[in-house]
């Protein structure tokens, strides 16, 4: 499994990278949406999962989701927002744009794992 963590905070990227690595993922990182698109384009790699922050410089997570959904090669990539944006309307917007799941910061390790189980990316009952 390949995952990409897109967040402008290095601390947050480190936390999420560690969590995914524990679950057996190989992990890529990007500091904003634009950087992520360029990384995926230049390496030709297609992650199974993208964890996407919303508020980032250059290209926001919402913009990234919209762009990623336009790219045929990335059709199989599961998009999960991991963000502090937490109004009802914001979640609806992200889902409408093509995000598959949504985790609100702050999160616990269990919360992320539960959502990945929901998406079929880790078995149910992993601790």
């Amino acid at each position, binding site marked *: 499994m390949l995952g990409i963590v897109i967040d402008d905070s290095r*601390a947050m990227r*480190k936390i999420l990278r560690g969590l995914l690595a524990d679950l057996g993922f190989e992990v890529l990182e990007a500091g904003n949406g634009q950087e992520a698109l360029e990384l995926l384009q230049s390496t030709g790699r297609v992650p199974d999962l993208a964890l996407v922050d919303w*508020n980032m*410089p250059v290209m926001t997570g919402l913009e990234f989701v919209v762009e990623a959904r336009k790219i045929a090669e990335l059709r199989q990539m599961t998009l999960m927002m991991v963000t*502090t*944006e*937490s*109004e009802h*309307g914001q979640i609806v917007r992200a889902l409408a744009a093509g995000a598959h799941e949504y985790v609100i910061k*702050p999160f616990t390790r269990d919360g992320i794992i539960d959502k990945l189980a929901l998406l079929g990316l880790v078995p149910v009952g992993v601790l």
Partner: protein
Amino acid sequence: MTNDVAMNVDVDLDIIAEQVWSAFLNSGEDEAIFAADDKGSHADLAASVAMVGAYEGHLVVSCSHKASRDVASVLFAMEADEVSQDDIGDALGELANVLGGNVKSVLPSPSQLSLPRVSATEHERWPGTVEVCRTVVSWRGEPFVVSLLSGGHAVHKTQEVPA
């Protein structure tokens, strides 16, 4: 551009701060507690995010150098003496971002959240603002003042965390 803040925003601020500390900064014995006040505390650093739109204001979290180093040490899972100034700015900025986003969700919407800004408190001014409410979190014996400001110009809407 009214700033009619929900009556319970002070309670919500407590709930939000409690969740942020328990999820991100609770490694075993570090349980955060709410302090009655911040008397005698000295804040060296302030991290803030601005809200622009239906609500105009700032969410500011301030603390001492030592406390900010501890936050970075927990979030980066590194020894306190290993973290750089850059790590501290990143960690404290993310703390303000997470607090700010959650606080924004209980305020009039729609509003946009700025990227976080972190700097020495002596350089930070929020002219024309009024403090709506605050909560003081005591963590590892260090106070963190989390305050919601209303009004003022969102001067640092697009600025990034300074090095």
